[in-house]
């Protein structure tokens, strides 16, 4: 493939590889908060303060140079600054932030995976599709599904038991390859977007956790705050554990931790995690999965 051909595909490539870079509701909240804050008036620098200010600056520079040199000696390379963000946040309770320090002076645990909300919207009025009573919720990622991963057409919105508050009437709703009834896709604002099933599972309807997570090939399992697993044999073993999860109830327990199941078809399913339970809407208990996951990371 020539460079020009590769560049022509840059939008698709970048959207695919940067699909986790999304402007979410948390960023929107920060923007609204910042815009609502009163603008500070610019201070006029008074000449009479120039000499004291210069002296203070020199002292600060001296303290900074000697202080930083001592603080960031090789023995302190693992220093991290822990802080708690102000305002509403969906991040884990004790996030560790990288300080603005010289390169190599801090390091992050590569095994750590931070929580990121994959469901679009918030509260009760989230973007969704219903198909024959099953409810599917819009996911933030991927931002555009490759059409080659579409499965069968299920029908058009506003006909044949399909409704949506996010997809226009008449748009076709598709299955996603290898995901059975666990996921659907449809055009939203000109892009093929993915919706994850969040309707309650129950013993009486025959649903199991498997109905929420599909059966496509899994590339990666990530548990926020814990780590990621990409080894195929281990993934197969862990997915086997999930198949045996026992149904608890039809409620969705939203939490600050999630299990992300990334599939080879480019989609990712998010399950909230609370203790040894997993929720997408229905809640399932699967202590064996978490034991095996932790053991696999050792």
């Amino acid at each position, binding site marked *: 493939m020539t460079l020009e051909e590769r560049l022509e595909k*840059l939008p698709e490539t*970048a959207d*695919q590889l940067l699909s986790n870079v999304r*402007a979410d509701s948390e960023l929107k909240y920060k*923007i609204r908060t910042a*815009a609502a804050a009163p603008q500070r008036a610019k201070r006029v620098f008074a000449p009479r303060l120039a000499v004291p200010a210069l002296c203070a600056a020199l002292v600060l520079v001296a303290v900074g140079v000697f202080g930083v040199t001592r603080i960031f000696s090789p023995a302190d390379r693992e220093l991290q600054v822990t802080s708690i963000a102000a305002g509403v946040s969906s991040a884990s309770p004790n996030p560790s932030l990288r300080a603005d320090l010289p*390169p190599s002076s801090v390091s992050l645990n590569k095994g750590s995976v931070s929580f990121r909300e994959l469901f679009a919207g918030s509260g009760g009025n989230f973007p969704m599709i219903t198909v024959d009573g099953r409810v599917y919720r819009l996911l933030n990622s991927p931002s555009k599904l490759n059409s080659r991963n579409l499965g069968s057409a299920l029908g058009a919105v506003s006909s044949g038991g399909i409704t949506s508050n996010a997809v226009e009437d008449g748009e076709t709703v598709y299955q996603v390859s290898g995901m059975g009834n666990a996921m659907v896709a449809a055009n939203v604002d000109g892009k093929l977007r993915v919706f994850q099933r969040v309707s309650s599972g129950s013993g009486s309807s025959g649903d199991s956790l498997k109905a929420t997570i599909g059966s496509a090939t899994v*590339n990666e399992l990530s548990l926020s705050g814990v780590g990621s697993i990409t080894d195929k044999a281990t993934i197969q073993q862990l997915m086997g554990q999930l198949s045996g999860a026992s149904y608890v109830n039809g409620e969705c327990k939203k939490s600050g931790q999630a299990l992300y199941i990334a599939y080879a078809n480019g989609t990712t399913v998010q399950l909230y995690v609370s203790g040894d339970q997993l929720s997408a809407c229905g809640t399932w208990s699967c202590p064996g999965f978490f034991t095996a996951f932790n053991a696999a990371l050792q």
Partner: protein
Amino acid sequence: MDERETVGASGRLDDARFEELYSRYADDVLRVSYFYLGNREQAEDVTQDVFVRLLTAAPILKPGSEKSWLLKVALNRCRDLWRSAWARRVLVGSPTLELIPDPDDVEDSLEKRELLQAVHRLPASFREIILMYYYQEFSIAEIADILEVPEGTVSSRLSRARKKLEEMLKGSASL
């Protein structure tokens, strides 16, 4: 497009308009900023600055020019950051984008990652041209308007950027 001329004095942007523009373009602003800077936190700061400005300055934007206005403000901010001491200290020397695993086959995936990393390593003036032309699919005339340079300059930079990119990719392939 003179940015100053588009800014009205009529107070804040109304909520519905903000929501519409945020849902349509915030991802583009964030990704272009991230692609430019290679730092997620800084890209989010740039996106925040851009949309705060949109909310508070309430620019009068012609239909169809919203995205170019937002990206113009974002690129200006990215350039400021890139030139800053902070960028020289923290970003330069570690130009690696964090890319999510590609589900496609490994060879295809490596090629894609290699291309994105190479674009990110281009000199800033070439990088922004490639991002605007190929990623955001603006025309030469639109890019000239956004960057406030003549169209000939855009064409010339684009040509040189492609050449540089080709050299970089050949270089990495021969390693």
